[in-house]
């Protein structure tokens, strides 16, 4: 029997494109895919290359997948130039995803910075769609400025959900900004989320993760109760190409979701 080509992508048509911020677009793809919140796919823009993106919509809200892409490098720039009706290649899903079963009957604290909200949005909407499985939900979402906040039209829905609180913050005071001001770790210190029966789920730029972890520990979260979803340059997605390891753990295969206890020795 021929071995299947693990590098060959499936074809997917872009069915919708939403401009989230000046440099972030959310692409909706026509593709049937079985996945868990927190998993990612390798996106192929033919002729340009591949890049990994987390799936940002909840599997409870199919069909199709959504990926939010910040225009940063060669592949993302090419992706931003695509239109509805264009075709991309998708490999995956890869990675472990969030341990949703272990989150049941827990208070859940989401801590997101910038585009780090993308993988959390998949889980947030998953939790809201199965609201009775979880206790309180707290979302702390920060960005450099209000222009950099993503999924803005979902905030009112999240705020209205049962036993759910949303804290929005920007780094510096702006005109017409009525929510919080300050970096994410400072906001956590102010709101003091409950740590009993709680799991904190953190995703954001490396600098935010670095300063958020000590605050969560101080608030009483144990390293096992802090989950983070990490990103590195994941090329193959299958633990072979050798780039994305943190210690012996491959982010693409063993992660991208890790407990802080698993990676704290290697996140310097």
């Amino acid at each position, binding site marked *: 029997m021929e071995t299947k*080509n693990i*590098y*060959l992508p499936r074809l997917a048509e872009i069915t919708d494109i939403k401009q989230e911020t000046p440099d972030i677009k959310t692409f909706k793809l026509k593709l049937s895919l079985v996945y868990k919140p927190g998993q990612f796919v390798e996106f192929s*823009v033919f002729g340009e290359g*591949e890049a990994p993106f987390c799936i940002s919509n909840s599997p409870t809200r199919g069909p199709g997948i959504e990926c939010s892409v910040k225009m940063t490098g060669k592949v993302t720039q090419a992706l931003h130039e695509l239109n509805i009706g264009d*075709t991309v*290649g998708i490999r995956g899903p890869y990675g472990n995803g969030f341990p949703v079963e272990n989150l049941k009957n827990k208070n859940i604290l989401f801590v997101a910075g910038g585009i780090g909200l993308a993988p959390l949005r998949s889980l947030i909407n998953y939790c809201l769609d199965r609201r009775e499985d979880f206790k309180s939900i707290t979302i702390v979402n920060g960005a450099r400025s209000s222009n950099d906040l993503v999924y803005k039209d979902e905030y009112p829905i999240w705020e209205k959900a049962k036993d759910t609180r949303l804290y929005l913050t920007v780094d510096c005071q702006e005109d017409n900004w009525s929510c919080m001001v300050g970096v994410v770790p400072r906001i956590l210190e102010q709101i003091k989320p409950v740590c009993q029966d709680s799991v904190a789920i953190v995703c954001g730029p490396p600098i935010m993760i670095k300063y958020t972890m000590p605050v969560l520990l101080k608030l009483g979260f144990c390293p096992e109760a802090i989950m983070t979803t990490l990103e590195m340059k994941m090329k193959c997605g299958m633990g*072979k*190409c050798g780039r994305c390891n943190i210690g*012996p753990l491959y982010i693409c295969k063993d992660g991208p979701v890790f407990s802080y206890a698993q990676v704290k020795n290697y996140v310097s």
Partner: protein
Amino acid sequence: MTLRILLNRVKTDTLLKKNMTKFIKKEDLYKLLNSFLKDFEIIGPKQIANKGIFYEPLESIEDLYLGELFAIEPAKKFFLESSECLFHSGFLDGKATVQDAPLPDKRRIIIGLRPCEAKGLILLDKVFDSEYKDRSYINNREKSVIVGLACAKPDKSCFCTSMDGSPTGSRGMDVLLFAVEDGFIVEIYSDKGKEAFSSLGKEPDEHQNKTLSAYKQKRSELIGKNFKVPGDLSPIFESDYWDKVSFPCLSCGVCTYLCPTCHCFELVDEGRKMYRCNDGCAFSNFTLEASGWNPRPTKKERYRQRVFHKFDYFKKIFGENLCVGCGRCIRHCPVKMDISEIVSNAPSGAGK
């Protein structure tokens, strides 16, 4: 002569319950190899003037070099090509298409592979023939018979015995040749090897058997470098030892290129063809992200990654070191860095 097992594309060779041992005269071995040339590609070490020994597809068996010198490059390029097309993308009737790259259908005999390199293939199997199977690598493995050559005279940079190997090791071999007076003692380990070599030669006589055991015993004693790899390097991850030892490194990457077990790669889409290309942890852009963030920004992190991948991470995942002690990275390093010394001198325990 055709080989039934190879032609049937048996997935992996099955090991024989009991090794077969034969004695073959040099001219008979060459005659046999010549008879294979019609149906097989024969790859073996070849002396190239002013350059050294290289594994090459042989047009004539006369070019085969079965002497003491080592090939400069490993034979890994015949299993993981330095740049290999994986799929094509294109358009058909206005619609996007993707298509597998065709797999070569060439059956091969790779002769003259040293025991360290054959063991390297077993280590690569753990990566490419595991949970996610790389079809091109597996195709290359399936279609190759490995006919090794036991080392007669190890180099001063060899350290295979410290990596649980031996100059006469059989791991990864279908057949292993021991060069003796006027011919070769041939040990046959697998069905593939039996198919190819059992028809020729004769049982070794008592003298030849004695020669073989002496050969096996003595060759290991010729390895000058002997050391024990620390069981767990993680306590010294943050040590400034890595600043110190990586200081001379030029980040040229020759160590990764010449290593029989280094396998890190890049995926590159060029002209709508996706290629898997050699890459290596020595290069700063290996982990450089589009945002400008680089989790391994300096030589310290990059060289540490090389050492940890080989002697800590891989061991934690697969139970053995990702190093076979062939010594190529030592012989060919332009600034004479010696990974065996770096590992054996690593500070014990945590701290600076």
